[in-house]
């Protein structure tokens, strides 16, 4: 760590990891309700459990992105953060807002648009927090060196905030409601979040492989170009069946098929950089997460996205468990793993320890990733059955669900493996191991 104010990232990373545990715990609970439908039915209905599951995910990923930004921007801009007071204030406001939203959900205080359930005043608070964040970060970049990594990152973050403004627009016309709801949901995760993800990966490649910045930054521009050229019109794959014109079936099919390209480029990029760098960075776990991130994102967002994105396939698979399979693997591969990569890289530096508990962290990687992969397979099988028996043969929804029970049981099992993996990862990151204590007692190594 080179700059004192990078320390604020620690708040965000710890907050993110705690919410990560909340997310997977409530996810496992939701998976359990599929298997035992009467579980908590009166006290905590499924819709609330799911709301907490998805909202915890979104908040912790954003919190991780903020931490990543506060960590990497000073090193990129070669200057201290504009105001570490604002950064800390913003953290507590964000955490408080997120916690208030989740506690509110338990007591039935929520809106009714998927993922945007936050009550109006929480949404306003989120915008306030984002403005503090963006002001603080933009001022830091403006007073320092402007690199491609930090510029792409800040563009991505500004677009996150601007697109969130569509969350305030809720027309009575359901078709328009859905069209603009996707402005937040799709243009976030299949658009500007990819900018954030790619710039974090680029930063990690510069730091860990020692490859020339110029080469890394050209790759970065290539990846984010592919992401937006395909992702913007790729929104069309959500406009097939919601009351919008038929031409979206062609546009959506073509461009969302091409959405595989940026993820494939990320695989090429990370593996080529690590191979080309040839340098053995001591933080093996962080390299594993970075490589794993691009591979899992390629399969989750790329391959599993393509699986059901063509309009004539989507006609049968839309809104089945195939979508759930894709959603889980894509979010894990792209955004969970990129967060865990930067956290694994940065936490030892923030805590003034050498990379520690590496083996345990890597065990966590394999356990968690296997769990998510297996969950994806079970949901995919369930979804294929559902598409065929319900959509093609026309059997009733609940009858088909009963036939899918075996896969829901397997999904619960794999979900519990994910929970175990997540706890191992968080433990390995936050609790010092024996090796760390040894290193600490000998000498403080210079960072980087």
């Amino acid at each position: 760590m080179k700059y004192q104010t990078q320390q604020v990232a620690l708040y965000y990373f710890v907050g993110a990891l705690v919410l990560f545990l909340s997310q997977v715990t409530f996810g496992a609970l939701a998976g359990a309700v599929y298997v035992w439908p009467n579980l908590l039915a009166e006290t905590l209905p499924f819709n609330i459990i799911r709301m907490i599951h998805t909202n915890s995910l979104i908040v912790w990923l954003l919190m991780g992105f903020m931490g990543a930004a506060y960590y990497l921007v000073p090193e990129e801009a070669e200057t201290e953060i504009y105001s570490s007071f604002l950064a800390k204030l913003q953290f507590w406001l964000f955490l408080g807002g997120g916690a208030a939203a989740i506690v509110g959900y338990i007591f039935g205080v929520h809106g009714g648009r998927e993922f945007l359930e936050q009550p109006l005043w929480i949404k306003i608070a989120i915008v306030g927090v984002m403005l503090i964040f963006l002001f603080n970060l933009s001022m830091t970049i403006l007073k320092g060196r402007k690199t491609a990594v930090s510029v792409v990152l800040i563009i991505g973050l500004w677009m996150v905030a601007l697109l969130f403004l569509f969350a305030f627009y809720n027309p009575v016309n359901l078709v328009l409601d859905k069209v603009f709801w996707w402005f937040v949901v799709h243009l976030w995760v299949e658009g500007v979040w990819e900018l954030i993800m790619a710039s974090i990966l680029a930063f990690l490649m510069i730091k860990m492989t020692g490859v020339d910045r110029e080469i890394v930054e050209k790759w970065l521009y290539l990846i984010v170009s592919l992401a937006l050229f395909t992702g913007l019109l790729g929104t069309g794959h959500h406009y097939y069946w919601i009351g919008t014109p038929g031409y979206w079936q062609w546009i959506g099919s073509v461009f969302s098929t091409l959405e595989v390209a940026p993820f494939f480029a990320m695989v090429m990029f990370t593996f080529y950089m690590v191979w080309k760098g040839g340098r053995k960075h001591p933080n093996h776990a962080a390299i594993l997460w970075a490589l794993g991130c691009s591979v899992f994102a390629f399969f989750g967002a790329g391959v599993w996205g393509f699986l059901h994105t063509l309009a004539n396939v989507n006609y049968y698979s839309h809104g089945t468990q195939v979508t759930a399979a894709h959603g889980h693997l894509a979010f894990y591969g792209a955004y969970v793993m990129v967060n865990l990569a930067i956290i694994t890289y940065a936490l030892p530096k923030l805590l003034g320890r050498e990379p520690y508990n590496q083996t345990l962290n890597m065990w966590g990687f394999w356990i968690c990733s296997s769990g998510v992969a297996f969950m994806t397979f079970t949901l995919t099988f369930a979804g294929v059955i559902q598409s065929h028996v319900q959509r093609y043969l026309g059997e009733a929804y609940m009858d088909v669900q009963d036939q899918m029970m075996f896969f829901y049981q397997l999904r619960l099992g794999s979900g519990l493996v994910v929970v175990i993996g997540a706890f191992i990862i968080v433990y390995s990151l936050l609790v010092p191991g024996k090796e760390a204590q040894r290193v600490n007692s000998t000498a403080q190594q210079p960072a980087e």
Partner: protein
Amino acid sequence: MNERLSISAARNIFYGGTIFFAVIFIGLVIDSVYYATDPETSNAEEINEQVALGKEVWERHSCINCHSLLGEGAYFAPELGNVWVRRGGAEDPEGAADYIKEWMKSQPTGIEGRRQMPNFDLSEEELDALVEFFKWTNGIDTQGWPPNDEG
């Protein structure tokens, strides 16, 4: 990476290309907004106060986090975009409305091993509005989706 591609060329491709695709996307979205509000191509003119109240009820209880509506939602409970025709609304509107309202009132079933829907304590006015919302949603031109009435 290609030596001939300079970093500033790569940057310009990113900015230029993004603006190009964003303009096309926004143009098509504007066209879609007209499509979804024009009485020729949509049922937007049939939206009334009841439909609006029905949508509000739908959102207040976060139905979307169990059900799906036009295929979007939680997949834990049946699709409701076409629940109106599934319950016979095309032939017998009154019967379908009664069916949906009675269904809502009789929840939760409490049957062991069966997914449970909470009772939302809706007033008669809210129940009627919800039915109107489902009926209106069923009338959206969804390009022939879903493949059958089971949703």
